[in-house]
């Protein structure tokens, strides 16, 4: 009898234990970011931000009681690696959600795979905009947030003659199209446009083409460490023109890496950089440095990755612990998935699954110190929705551009 009782107790205990184990099953988050190669300088901080957020969330009891388990792969700034690892995290590791991608080329490389396996991916990078895909949530800033603010301000301040140099791939081409349109709408003139292949590091001729065209300011949409050599070379040739950008400083912290004054008079619209002087930003930076004392810079992508982790937690918890994409999107569709993060309050837009931002205009001084001549509060990612993308109604899995907008029904 006693033996029976003991057996029954043990069985009950075993059940209870397995039940507990089930409840504490981790939520797996795939992290595909470039930790080596041309883009690593800008993206290692994203991985650190995700690790920081995961540590905080786990310490506070996890997501809906389940701990976060990160599955991290180094995509080596290589689009092929993105495809391999995206298949691996979705098929073999069976993660619940993926945080992936720096360059737009890499995002477009992995996006069809996310669609194929019907997964959910966060893209935490500023980019050229236009991705209308229910499998993607984008927390980075887009052109209507970065260019519709920056370019008119620059034209008012410095003049209407504009020269664009841009990296020659989808990001640079589409961003340049945005700049071109805004310059035209504001009554300015494009005096030149040049697309630079990725990996090019010698800019003598480009600098001279710019001087010959005599613009009032230069829009620099250069990507990767090799192309960043432009600033040093332009400064040593005494080009001396104001620069405007959506990617510099906020992403590649060039003002920390180069000797002053090569980046002087650079204006950048960014949704976060570590110099942002608010209590929330200061607190975030302090937490970041406590965990990673040697972090060279906390950029906007790091902040967006951190925000994305918290938005994901919120959506899962509001969906009653479900990690199913449709349950999360049902929460997102309510339009009140918001988070008070390092960059202020941000909300996800149901139509485009992009995020609203406070946009800071950062100016680099002669000594490479940062000042903020202007702040635009709560700029919504309106372009996709206005153009006709509504993910609550249909999921076209497309990337649209101003010259290739959604066909309206």
């Amino acid at each position: 009898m006693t033996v029976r009782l003991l057996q029954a107790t043990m069985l009950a205990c075993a059940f209870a234990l397995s039940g507990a184990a089930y409840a504490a099953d981790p939520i797996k988050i795939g992290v595909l970011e470039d930790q080596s190669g041309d883009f690593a300088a800008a993206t290692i901080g994203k991985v650190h931000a995700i690790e920081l957020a995961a540590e905080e969330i786990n310490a506070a009891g996890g997501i809906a009681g389940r701990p976060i388990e990160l599955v991290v792969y180094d995509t080596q700034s290589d689009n092929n690696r993105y495809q391999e690892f995206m298949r691996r995290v979705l098929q073999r590791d069976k993660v619940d959600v993926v945080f992936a991608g720096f360059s737009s080329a890499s995002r477009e490389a992995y996006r069809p795979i996310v669609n194929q396996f019907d997964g959910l991916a966060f893209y935490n990078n500023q980019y050229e905009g236009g991705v209308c895909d229910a499998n993607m949530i984008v927390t980075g800033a887009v052109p209507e947030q970065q260019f519709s603010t920056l370019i008119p301000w620059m034209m008012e301040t410095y003049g209407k003659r504009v020269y664009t140099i841009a990296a020659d791939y989808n990001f640079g081409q589409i961003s340049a199209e945005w700049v071109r349109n805004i310059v035209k709408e504001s009554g300015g003139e494009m005096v030149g446009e040049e697309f630079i292949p990725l990996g090019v590091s010698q800019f003598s001729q480009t600098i001279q083409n710019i001087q010959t065209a005599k613009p009032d300011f230069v829009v620099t949409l250069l990507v990767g460490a090799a192309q960043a050599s432009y600033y040093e070379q332009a400064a040593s040739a005494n080009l001396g023109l104001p620069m405007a950008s959506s990617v510099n400083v906020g992403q590649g912290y060039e003002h920390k890496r180069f000797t002053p004054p090569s980046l002087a008079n650079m204006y950048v619209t960014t949704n976060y950089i570590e110099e942002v002087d608010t209590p929330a930003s200061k607190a975030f930076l302090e937490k970041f440095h406590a965990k990673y004392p040697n972090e060279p810079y906390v950029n906007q992508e790091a902040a967006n990755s951190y925000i994305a982790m918290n938005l994901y937690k919120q959506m899962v918890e509001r969906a009653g612990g479900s990690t199913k994409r449709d349950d999360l999107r049902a929460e997102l569709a309510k339009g009140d998935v918001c988070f008070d993060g390092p960059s202020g309050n941000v909300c996800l837009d149901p139509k485009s699954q992009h995020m609203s931002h406070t946009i800071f205009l950062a100016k680099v001084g002669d000594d490479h110190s940062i000042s903020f001549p202007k702040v635009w509060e709560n700029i919504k990612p309106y372009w996709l929705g206005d153009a006709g993308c509504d993910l609550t109604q249909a999921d076209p899995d497309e990337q649209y551009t101003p010259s290739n907008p959604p066909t309206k029904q």
Partner: protein
Amino acid sequence: MEFVTAIVSSAYQFGDAFAFLVLSACGLAVIFGMMGVINLAHGEFIMCGAYMTVFAVNWGLPLPLAIACGSLFAGLVGMVIERLIVRQLYSRPLDSILATWGVSLIASQGTLILFGPTMRGVGTPLGSFTVGALSFSYYRLVLMATALAVLALLYLVFTKTRFGVLARATIQAPHMANALGVDTSRIYAYTFGIGAALAGLTGGIYAPTMTMIPTMGTTFIMEAFVTVVVGGADVFLGTAPAAALLAVVKASLTSWQGQLAGQIGLLLAVIIVIRLLPKGITGFILKDRA
């Protein structure tokens, strides 16, 4: 004045492209031309020289000394790698390609782990000058002068010094040279060291104009291989004229249609030259003489 500006500008752009091609390629050309080894770690020797230069500047050395330091260090590293790896593979040229590629992966990833994804550079010295409406960097003139000086120095070393004679003897008839008392393995080590030191010099002298990252060497690689392939095995008969030819193609196309056209032109030029002159410009000149 317009006309003068245009002339100066074209000459400057040609010189700039020429300097980049010569300096990118010379280390690779010495190792390939003299030893027949295709060194895929060439870009990492360049990176090594650049990093050493920046460290030396940070320790307080003036830039020219720091560049010398970077070059010397890359040369020493080259000799160590020759001793440990390349020497074992002289009879297996294909395997040496694979081995040097492995060295390059280890070097760039090792640098990433040791020094992080990026490092602050040293800033370009010397300032600028203006001609007409255009302004130019003085430092770029230094790069051009260095390219010419490197070519002149290599010529003197390989034709006028005892080491040069022994090196060429070793290349032409290794067994005969050995039989006559030449320590051929030492000659190989020095030659590889010179190639690596030249790569280090390139890295050091370009370091102030570029972003310091572990993969910075790869931005030189395309130009380096293109120049060596077009030039053929001989540094003087090949690399110098090849660099001049390609510099004309690149500078004129870039000024006409931008960087993309320049890159395309460079690669098209290689395809055409290889189709017409399989042994590069060297082969063409030597055949002409015979």
